[in-house]
């Protein structure tokens, strides 16, 4: 804490009380949280109810008699977890999600730094192109990419993109997820990195640091909140993705990811859909753990020490 803030604290409790909200703040927060929770609670309650009851009574009625043993069951979870290939699918999801989170963040952070603090020809055009690419619906890109993976691309007889046989490989999925995540990552990180004070970068340059050193020693540590925020989104998106993994990795037992294994629980005619409620909570566990573990990076004052003009 700086001397100024210490003085502020000492000058009186008024400022301190203002900083922490009173009842208004607490009640508003509570109200929004409750509204936001209703749909999720519905799923949670349903995931513990037997199939016949799910279809014949509203889920909120179960809350009226919370101690009626017959109204609750763990059967949905047992059925979801005992579906074959579950452990395998969990491992596959990890192998897809972790690199597909780290790769785009790394590539995007370098690009965002270049767009913010380096001067080179074409940077406006490139940045506009990146923002523009945010709008490409990924469903539209899947088929051309799959064609590249299986056949490459040729202009006449000249092979302009080699046939890499990437379909069904982890690398193929990582690159696809990287490409779909990059525009947002570059956009978010450029906004953050570009708003860091120029004085710290200038002084590092005067001290003789080159761009690579500035990036590694200054920019990355200062950008941890933004990097953590994007890491959460990218991880969630990749973890919950079904389409990209299905198209590029395939639906075999060996290769299927968690979302696909869970989707397969539901029969072709839509029976067993209540299993999805249990499955939804099983697949949520890891992303929530990631969110909680990254929470500590969203703290006040992480940049305060470095941001001195």
């Amino acid at each position, binding site marked *: 804490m700086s001397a100024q803030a210490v003085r502020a604290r000492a000058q009186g409790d008024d400022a301190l009380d203002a900083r922490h909200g009173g009842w208004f*703040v607490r009640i508003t927060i509570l109200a929004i949280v409750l509204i936001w929770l209703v749909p999720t609670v519905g799923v949670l309650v349903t995931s513990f109810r037997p199939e016949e009851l799910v*279809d014949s009574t*509203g889920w909120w009625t179960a809350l009226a008699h919370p101690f009626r043993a017959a109204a609750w069951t763990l059967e949905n979870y047992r059925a979801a977890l005992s579906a074959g290939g579950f452990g395998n699918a969990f491992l596959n999801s990890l192998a897809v999600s972790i690199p597909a989170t780290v*790769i785009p963040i790394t590539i995007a952070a370098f690009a965002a730094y270049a767009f913010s603090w380096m*001067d080179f020809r074409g940077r406006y055009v490139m*940045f506009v192109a990146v923002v523009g690419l945010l709008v490409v619906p990924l469903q539209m*890109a899947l088929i051309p990419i799959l064609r590249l993976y299986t056949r490459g691309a040729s202009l006449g007889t000249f092979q302009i993109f080699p046939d890499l046989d990437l379909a069904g*490989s982890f690398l193929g999925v990582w690159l696809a997820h990287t490409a779909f995540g990059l525009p947002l990552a570059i956009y978010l990180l450029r906004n953050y990195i570009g708003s860091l004070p120029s004085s710290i970068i200038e002084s590092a340059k005067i001290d003789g640091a080159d761009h690579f050193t500035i990036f590694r020693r200054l920019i990355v540590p200062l950008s941890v909140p933004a990097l953590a925020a994007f890491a959460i989104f990218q991880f969630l998106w990749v973890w919950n993705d079904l389409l990209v993994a299905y198209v590029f990795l395939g639906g075999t037992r060996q290769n299927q990811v968690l979302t696909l294994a869970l989707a397969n629980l539901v029969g072709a005619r839509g029976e067993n859909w209540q299993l999805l409620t249990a499955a939804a*909570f099983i697949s949520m566990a890891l992303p929530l753990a990631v969110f909680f573990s990254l929470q500590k990076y969203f703290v006040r004052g992480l940049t305060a020490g470095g941001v001195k003009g």
Partner: protein
Amino acid sequence: MKTSTDKPASATEVAVEPPSAGARGLWVSLLRLVGALIVPSVGFFLLWATFDFLRDENANRGLVVAVAIVVGVGGVFFLFWGMDRVVTLLPTRYREGVRPYVFVGPALVILTVFLVYPVINTILISFKDARSESFVGLENFKFVFTDESMLRAIRNTAGWIIVVPLFGVSIGLAFATLADRLRRGEAVAKSMIFLPMAISFAGASITWKLIYAFRPEGFGTNIGLLNGIMLGLGQQPVPWLQEQPWNNLFLMVIMIWMQTGFAMVVLSAAIKSIPEEIIEAARIDGASELQVFRRIMVPSILPTIVVVTTYMVINALKVFDIVFVVGSAETNGTEVIAERMIRWFFISNNDGRAAAIAVVLFVAIVPVMIWNVRRFREQEATR
């Protein structure tokens, strides 16, 4: 210390690294090409060569997964480290000229192959017939702007890109600001808003079934919460998702529910990076909480608000899954542009029309892009 975004740059701040232009010529251009294209490609092929192991059907899955994670994560770090090594081998005067292209190179290569190429492909197809065999001129675009269902989709999408960002950003900003001032429980409160983002898509479709479900009288109990409330109030159950035009709004609620967490987390990170001293100083000077919010917090995080709004506008423009899963968009009048595109592409197998709809999507984003470029330049001018 920078206290506001509109402070003019101080005279002592030098323009950011102007590499003395000219006197470089062909040699540097060549080096740039090497930096931007060949080095990433080499790294890429090295990675790819190790992948035979990862395809081995008989290998232990746990081991394969562990190797995959190490190779994937290590590979990207190695790529940049290796490229930096190569750059330092260059003569000093070329180094900083080549480096920007090394930094942006990998991003540009991947984006070109995976997004720009499909876009060009799509634009070409939009001028061709249903099976992309012969050119039909502007026929597909004529369809887009005359078909009744398409016009409804365009109108509905306009609603989505206004309502969803408006509510998502407002609620997210309000929540992030207020949660920042909780003495305890900020992390828990934020997690609850964030929760919907962690639910997979299949899960989310079930979630809202439990809210909006409707059964007419005599067809069983209503298991949707809203109709449970209606019956409790002595009203008739309402087929929420068939009530035009309000059903559009009910679908937007789903997206607001899912996306507010995004706005909240990003805005919260921005709020946390406002130096506390500035806010404390304003409070000591007697600023009311509303003034602190309007005069200090909002201006400080304005760039982030723009980014979050842009992202939500684009996402609302691309919305398809919510509408698609609820189904019967045409009878319910809930069509949106991206949903029409998917329908024409995957269900009606008319590639030309689907591509033309996609092109309309790209064009719709142009105003948002112009707005962003303007901001980009402003930010550079003021720092």
